[in-house]
């Protein structure tokens, strides 16, 4: 296997759900389309255009094959954010005569949630379904939310923060029975579990290349042809992509996505097997050395590439600071002035404290056993150190129930 060698002193990369490096095989496939084969795929009058178009169509086949779709059902976009915007707004606008109600989950990616918020401002109604403590949606709750005017439901196949897999076949079947369109954000599913638009009866599906060892800035929307799903374009221009998404196609990016998708499917079994061993090693390693660690999200209906843990009695930002030797994401977004706990973990019913002190370990194609072992040692040492410093940990050891304490809130 091709290896990407990172300089020694860089942090260990365990943030594969955030993004992935481009696989060297993918880079190799892309390069000629930046240099000698630079033509515009829309140029019909010369060979530069023809060879670019051929490459785009080959990539379309590769992406379609990865999700068991027809190549004519693939629309190129700039990424999954755009794909989800196009799918949800596009369908809502097109079918608004039929109804103006949509359903989604509280734990969706922002690309879906913020798009739904925008539709609410336009007068649509959106139901944000609660999930259970394990992160999975209850099918009865889902069914109960369906209304005669529901036109679309959008569900995240694999959650980007906690890796849980929703029961997509059951949801797809139920939505088809109710004639409600099914949009699936499969960004974190592709390459990790088998994705089949027929098996889950998806009508629309968002995909992104940079989570599957392809380049950033390219994604795709699957739009079902039978029965035909219609969407209103959100970007207008030269009428590319059968009018659904105008703009000159970035041939090299598309070639990269095609190659990445094909490779992801080829390597899925071997990658997943190895990654599962690493995930188990990480979990056992940490929990055997550190007490009061909580797993966020179901462990059974979950991709092995993700482990999300909360470390009680230590504060999230100091934990991230302590773990600067590893590149991970935390459940607190300390980007703004106030520390916002993850809305996904809050939706699971986690306290602010546990949401804040959560760490997402994302394991990927290039993660090694040595990196996992180094991570275990670092986490054990740093959590131990922070707990030495923590009055809450001391109180916990003394058997004091922190919920019974009257805190002088400020």
């Amino acid at each position, binding site marked *: 296997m091709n290896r990407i060698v990172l300089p020694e002193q860089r942090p260990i990369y365990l943030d594969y759900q955030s993004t992935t490096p481009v696989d060297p095989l993918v880079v190799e496939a892309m390069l000629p389309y930046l240099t000698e084969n630079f033509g515009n795929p829309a140029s019909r009058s010369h060979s530069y255009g023809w060879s670019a178009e051929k490459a785009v169509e080959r990539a379309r086949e590769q992406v379609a094959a990865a999700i068991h779709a027809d190549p004519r059902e693939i629309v190129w976009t700039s990424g999954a954010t755009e794909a989800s915007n196009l799918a949800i707004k596009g369908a809502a606008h097109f079918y608004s005569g039929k109804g103006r109600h949509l359903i989604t989950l509280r734990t969706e990616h922002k690309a879906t949630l913020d798009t739904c918020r925008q539709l609410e401002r336009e007068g649509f109604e959106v139901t944000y379904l609660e999930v259970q403590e394990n992160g999975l949606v209850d099918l009865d709750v889902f069914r109960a939310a369906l209304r005669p005017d529901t036109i679309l439901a959008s569900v995240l196949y694999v959650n980007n923060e906690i890796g849980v897999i929703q029961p997509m076949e059951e949801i797809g079947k139920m939505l088809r029975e109710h004639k409600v369109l099914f949009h699936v954000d499969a960004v974190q599913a592709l390459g990790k579990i088998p994705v089949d638009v027929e098996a889950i009866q998806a009508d629309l599906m968002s995909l992104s290349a940079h989570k599957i060892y392809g380049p950033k800035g390219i994604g795709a929307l699957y739009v079902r042809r039978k029965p035909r799903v219609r969407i209103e374009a959100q970007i207008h221009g030269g009428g590319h992509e059968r009018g659904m998404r105008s703009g000159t196609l970035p041939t090299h990016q598309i070639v990269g996505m095609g190659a990445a998708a094909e490779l992801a499917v080829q390597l899925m079994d071997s990658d997943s097997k190895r990654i599962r061993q690493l995930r188990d090693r990480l979990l056992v390693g940490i929990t055997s050395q550190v007490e009061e660690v909580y797993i966020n999200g179901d462990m059974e209906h979950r991709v092995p590439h993700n482990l999300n843990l909360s470390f009680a009695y*230590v*504060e*999230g930002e100091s934990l991230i600071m302590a773990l600067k030797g590893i590149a991970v994401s935390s459940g607190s977004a300390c980007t703004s002035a106030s520390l916002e706990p993850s809305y996904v973990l809050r939706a699971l019913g986690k306290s602010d404290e546990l949401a804040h002190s959560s760490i997402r370990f994302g394991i990927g194609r290039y993660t090694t056993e040595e990196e996992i072992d180094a991570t275990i040692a670092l986490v054990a040492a740093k959590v131990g150190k922070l707990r030495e*410093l923590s009055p809450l940990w001391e109180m916990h050891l003394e058997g004091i129930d922190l919920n019974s304490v009257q805190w*002088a809130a*400020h």
Partner: protein
Amino acid sequence: MAYSEKVIDHYENPRNVGGFDKNDTSVGTGMVGAPACGDVMRLQIKVNEQGIIEDAKFKTYGCGSAIASSSLVTEWVKGKTLDEAMTIKNSQIAEELELPPVKIHCSVLAEDAIKAAIADYRSKNGGVASETH
């Protein structure tokens, strides 16, 4: 979040971590903050017969700036009389640690912790009310 070198120094080498017996009459304990707000500081002072703070210890649950603020004040209060310690201002802490505006509340909490520890000591020792409050 970019931290100043001083914050990182206190965070990596916190001074005076630990605690004293809170039932000891020569000890004053101040616990401020709340877990849900993301920071809890416990500052303890040990006061000698001359009314001078001869030792101080802390434990903090909080971000790097909160840990650094409390570590710093344990150094500052040592050797001070209670009245002198009462004059420590959050702005001095923030300035010393070069805290960014979003972290000023950490220095406020550290000041509150000193005041709470002194108030606890005073209430244990005859309930002399704080003169400067």
